[in-house]
């Protein structure tokens, strides 16, 4: 469904991605794991067509993402960013329905879809009537997710979706996201720096550092068969910071 082939991306003299390849089969959830500056967000931007690779190709549904195809391909993708990326001047429900009204959906269809998504995200009508700044971080994130799912795209791209949340809310939402991804059968690419999130949500994981792929595989592969010492270092660094992983 989504594939990167030897993709290199430079910003001036900085190499953001260095010959990165990865495959995400349809319906799978793939996690891009790494600390900030590792290039994982750039991968999402290349898939979306918000940036173009300097070398290599990005393929979505068998079509190479380029200037000619990106407008068509983006219709198949939902995008969620840290803290929701909501429009502050629109109410939550207006944020959610923006894309549907742009597509000329009839009112009834919009309302039905909003009700369905609100049930899924656990948000009530009163909350949806509020402006983003009147919501909690978790609520904003749910609204952002609803907005990305509004047109029911087969691909969901999430960039640190839970990055702005406190640990308890975060853990709760991680569980809910896991359930949701499984239920919806979307092809998901999720960017995070959080190992627990990667462990919980990712069927497969790509661990990145400094624009390069360090290891790809399941969480178990990373823990049990680290390809290089860095993998172990990365995994234990966060465990040290959080001595007891809650809910595990």
């Amino acid at each position: 469904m989504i594939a990167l082939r030897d993709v290199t991306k430079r910003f001036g003299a900085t190499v953001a991605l260095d010959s990165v390849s990865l495959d995400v089969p349809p319906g799978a959830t793939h996690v891009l794991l790494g600390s900030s500056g590792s290039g994982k967000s750039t991968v999402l931007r290349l898939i979306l067509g918000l940036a173009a690779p300097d070398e290599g190709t990005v393929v979505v549904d068998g079509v190479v993402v380029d200037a000619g195809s990106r407008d068509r391909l983006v219709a198949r993708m939902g995008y969620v960013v840290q803290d929701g990326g909501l429009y502050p001047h629109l109410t939550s429900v207006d944020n959610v329905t923006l894309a549907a009204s742009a597509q000329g959906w009839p009112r009834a269809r919009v309302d039905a879809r909003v009700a369905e998504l609100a049930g899924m995200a656990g948000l009530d009508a009163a909350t949806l009537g509020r402006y983003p700044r009147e919501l909690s971080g978790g609520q904003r994130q749910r609204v952002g997710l609803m907005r990305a799912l509004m047109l029911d795209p087969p691909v969901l791209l999430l960039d640190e979706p839970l990055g702005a949340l406190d640990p308890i809310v975060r853990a709760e939402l991680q569980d809910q996201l896991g359930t949701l991804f499984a239920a919806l059968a979307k092809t998901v690419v999720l960017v995070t720096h959080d190992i627990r999130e990667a462990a919980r949500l990712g069927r497969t994981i790509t661990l990145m550092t400094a624009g390069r792929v360090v290891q790809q595989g399941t969480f178990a592969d990373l823990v049990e068969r680290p390809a290089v010492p860095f993998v172990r270092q990365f995994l234990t660094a966060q465990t040290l910071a959080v001595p007891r992983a809650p809910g595990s």
Partner: protein
Amino acid sequence: MRPSLTAALALIAALPFAVPATAADGVIRVGSKSFTESYILAEVIAQVIEQVGEARAERRVGLGGTGLTQRALESGAIDVYPEYTGTLARVILKDPALQTVEALRARLAAGGLTISASLGFANTYALAIRAEQAERLGLRTVGDLARHPELRAAFSSGFLERDDGWPGLRARYGLGLARVEVMEHAVTYRAIASGQVDLMDVFSTDGQLERLRLRLLEDDRRFFPDYSAVLLARREMTERFPRTWARLREALEGRLDAARMARLNAMADLDGRSVPEVAAAFLGGGTPEAGSGRGRALLGELAALTADHLLLVLISVGAAVVLGIPMGVIAARYRRAGQVELSVIAMLQTVPALALLMFMIPLFGIGKGPALIALSVYALLPIARNTYAGMMAIEPTLLEIAWVLRLGRLRRLLRVELPLSAIAIMAGIKTAAVTTVGTATLAAFIGGGGYGTLIVRGLALDDTATILAGAAPAAVMALAFHALFELLDRAVIPRGLRS
């Protein structure tokens, strides 16, 4: 290409205001320069036109100096105004040899203009001296001064320097005065009245002469050029409205001697009578009792000027909003063209407002139209620049998301970019509106009306109260606009953006 396109759009949008004026519509537009005598004569003309009833009179008075008024006449923005033969010969036709009304009229015909005969007085330079002193010393003519070199003179700086002033006069008469000082007229009048000065230069119809019991010394060697007052008109108007023109000539030609004109000037300058009152007094032959109903007349005029001023501000700021927001959007979309565009607008902004108004005259004539164009140009910068700044300040992620959501350009602009820029845009419009209230007072200098009418008149009549009557309401209106926009902010700025 963009800036020229938008400039062209600005011109097109402004065209309906710039009515190319001709007397085609049953209206005679009466102009005047901006000094008391010119105001009074223009008002007399307007009142005569109204009495005849052949055409409607439109007053476009207080246009400024000769150049401006003359250009207004040539462009058809005004049809008639009071002028002086000396000015026609020296300044307008630039041929001092043209001495008689007939010669001037023949020369003016080529330009589609004509003049009446002399109204009966000349407003020329003259030397004035206290009547009792003239009596005592037996002074009657300028030449008599040669016998009294001890007299103390105070002349205005213009008179001291001009060839047709003191240097020429002195040479012609062979005068030598012991003490000649430079002094401004207003001061000199006081000085001569209190006896500190004996001799001063004046204009022969000055309202002060009679009050201060000053006598003019006769220019027996005819040194000072003749500045006889005449009506200068477009022939087109005189032919379309022959009855009116005939009546104007009948009512004015030879009917005003210098003393009478001086008295009319004094009524306006010294007695605080309104110009329409003074004009009516002349036409009615009598002198109406002083002061009555002046306050009420001013209030009525103030109400009309307020409506006028409001119209100037609303239309020009409205036009600037309609043009400025798209220009700001274009500047934000196409960066390089945008920089050029914003620089051009900023450059226009650096042209002093008054100069910009003057530039409008050859292009669009005088009156509301060109004033509105100039004011719109002035209001453009804060609106365009703030729109640009507001658009540039939007978080890039929010714009990328708009693309991912496939909003389309127009929907993105209307639902995302402009609302997110609303605070900046509203601030720009507020700045534009409040400053335009002030700048609009300058519109009166090209006959655009508004509160500036009182300021221009007050300046011409040297009447602080009248200046304040124009300036104070303008300040109040600026404050009112500020308050209005505080309310408007609530309506326009999305609730989610307000703190």
